[in-house]
């Protein structure tokens, strides 16, 4: 849950503060600290919008553009999801962030045995293009960008998004989608993997290569330090692992003969905001600076715009608690403040009920209002990077930078991220820290309000988002009807072409678009890959 460790004396005075990344905070910072680190404005910060972008990637920060808010939405059927999308847009939300149910994320159709009891439970069920046609009906796909929270079959879903947009009459050049599409972090954290590491990374390379040529406004990959942090790593490790993952994808595309310059500008990141406020802000400032510098040093990228660390900085799921859940409303507001002080361009916030259920409509709206209050009422748009020049913040930013590089070095020594994940090194490291954190929380070494301190009163009964068996029935009916109506010859032809292309290790994206347009199902496409690639086996980590 990401708070620092405090060592106190018998009178409750704080003797020592150790941040999660292992940095000690001093009680007082002075100009001497800046002198000690050899602080240089041009080299360390630069003006906002200028290399190395520590302060901001935009010269005027939030003055020129307010942030994009993208609450995670989607449940049950495509019809219900469509209604919720429209509601959030009518309340001022400026992008969508689509949640898929687990069968869809894992490449199973709603009528698959493995999907039993899960259809529509944690997100929307998608079996075919028909479902996307319902979910995105009346959404202006040339104006509203969509995050697609899916990984193992992100290539399928990106093809599906292009197909639905073209079916509605939009040009593929004008749509903006950001599939999450980060399979290495699934293997470390969130667990929604299907295929072995090597072909899974190649699929990501396919989407990047395809988007470079065909989908100029899409960001084909959103590298997620977020989930690795949720799984237990430190803020410094979150950034270092995310960067090492990004390098693995970049290297895959470079090996196809492309220049990093031509596609790295499309990478975006999904990073976590919770825990110690100062460590969070320093983390993002250090990350912006390092990303720009490393792309330049490692890959020789010159174009300044391609050096921007862009992404969604938000969430904070692990910071939220099931105990006294209304406290999460306040926590969320502070996390949003941290995101604003960090210069996030796009943000989302876990709703206060998210520790135990899919957000209710009321809770999702409260999160949106939290952002709006920050930006429209209390002055977070006034000036760029307001903490710049602070003795403490600049020292901490430098220390975070060093910690991040230190952690990257460890992975580098393992032979890079693909290797470090395949052998289970990262999983072991993250798992060990999660245990240590939980132990400290239970022993009271780390304080969590309402959990191990101030625990009196105001507990609330957990109410799960009601699961509706009707969803599965509706989806399965629609699927059955689709299979009768579609041109089955076209489907089998397109699937056959997909299989051949996958076997030849060629880019599968054009074939996936054909499959989607012929109304092949997600399960059918995913199964082609299962046959060709096989399935991932988790390394033993204990």
């Amino acid at each position, binding site marked *: 849950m990401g708070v620092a460790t405090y060592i106190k004396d018998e009178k409750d005075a704080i003797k020592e503060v150790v941040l999660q990344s292992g940095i000690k905070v001093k009680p007082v910072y002075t100009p001497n600290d800046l002198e000690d680190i050899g602080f240089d404005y041009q080299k360390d910060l630069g003006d906002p919008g200028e290399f190395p972008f520590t302060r901001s990637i935009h010269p005027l920060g939030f003055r020129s553009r307010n942030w994009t808010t993208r609450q995670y939405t989607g449940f049950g059927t495509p019809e219900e999801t469509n209604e919720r999308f429209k509601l959030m847009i009518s309340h001022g939300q400026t992008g969508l962030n689509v949640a898929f149910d687990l069968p869809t994320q894992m490449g199973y159709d709603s009528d698959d045995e493995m999907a039993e009891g899960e259809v529509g439970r944690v997100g929307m069920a998608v079996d075919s293009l028909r479902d996307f046609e319902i979910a995105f009906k009346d959404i202006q796909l040339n104006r509203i960008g969509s995050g697609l929270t899916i990984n193992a079959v992100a290539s399928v879903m990106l093809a599906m998004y292009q197909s639905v947009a073209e079916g509605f009459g939009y040009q593929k050049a004008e749509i903006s989608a950001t599939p999450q599409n980060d399979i290495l972090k699934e293997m470390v954290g969130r667990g929604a993997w299907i295929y072995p590491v090597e072909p899974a990374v190649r699929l990501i390379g396919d989407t990047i290569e395809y988007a470079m040529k065909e989908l100029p406004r899409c960001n084909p990959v959103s590298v997620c330090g977020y989930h690795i942090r949720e*799984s237990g790593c430190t803020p410094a490790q979150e950034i270092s692992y995310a960067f090492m993952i990004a390098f693995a994808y970049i290297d895959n595309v470079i090996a196809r003969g492309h220049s990093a310059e031509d596609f790295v500008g499309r990478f975006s990141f999904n990073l976590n905001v919770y825990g110690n406020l100062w460590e969070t802000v320093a983390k993002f400032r250090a990350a912006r600076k390092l990303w720009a510098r490393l792309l330049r040093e490692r890959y020789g990228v010159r174009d300044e715009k391609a050096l921007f660390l862009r992404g969604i900085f938000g969430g904070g799921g692990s910071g939220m608690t099931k105990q006294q859940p209304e406290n999460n409303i306040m926590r969320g507001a502070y996390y949003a403040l941290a995101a604003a002080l960090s210069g996030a361009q796009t943000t989302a916030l876990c709703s206060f009920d998210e520790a*135990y259920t899919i957000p209710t409509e009321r809770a999702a709206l409260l999160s949106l209002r939290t952002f709006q209050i920050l930006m429209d009422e209390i002055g977070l748009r006034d000036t760029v990077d307001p903490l710049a020049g602070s003795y403490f913040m600049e020292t901490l930013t430098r220390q975070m930078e060093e910690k991040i590089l230190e952690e990257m070095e460890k992975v580098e020594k393992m032979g890079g991220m693909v290797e470090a994940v395949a052998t289970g090194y990262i999983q072991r490291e993250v798992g060990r820290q999660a245990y240590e954190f939980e132990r400290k929380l239970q022993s009271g070494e780390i304080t969590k309000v309402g959990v191990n301190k101030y625990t009196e009163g105001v507990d609330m009964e957990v109410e799960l988002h009601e699961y509706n068996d009707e969803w599965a029935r509706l989806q399965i009916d629609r699927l059955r009807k689709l299979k009768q109506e579609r041109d089955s010859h076209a489907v089998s032809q397109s699937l056959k072409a997909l299989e051949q292309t996958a076997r030849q290790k060629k880019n599968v994206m054009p074939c996936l678009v054909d499959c989607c347009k012929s109304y092949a199902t997600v399960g059918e496409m995913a199964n082609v890959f299962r046959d060709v690639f096989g399935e991932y086996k988790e390394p033993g980590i204990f």
Partner: protein
Amino acid sequence: MAERKIRVLLAKPGLDGHDRGAKVVAHAMREAGMEVIYTGLHQTVASIVNQALQEDVDVIGLSIMSGAHIPICTKLMDMIKEQGIDNKLVAVGGVIPNRDIPALKEMGVQGIFPGGSYFTDIVEFIQKHAPGR
């Protein structure tokens, strides 16, 4: 003769991949001197029951975050009865609302540990209730 260590099968049934809780509890049980066999993700109930048989465990622990604990536990309890291994101690952890606890107890799930449960409570419960203790 030293007492045989308690053997626990810790399982992640279903499609949900959030395994921080399962791994953390596995660590804690090991620290407490138990032998823990972790199934890994995406297990069917049939494969969990099969592993419980093969590994001759005393305890089956399930970690479920998706909200599907009632159907999964119902299926598991039926299958262990069929296999004649319903003497094993069954416990479940994860996102479990209070109102579902009676139904789980009714079907024979003895230990129920919602998110935020203490290691000591889980360990003591197993030490006390594992068969043959």
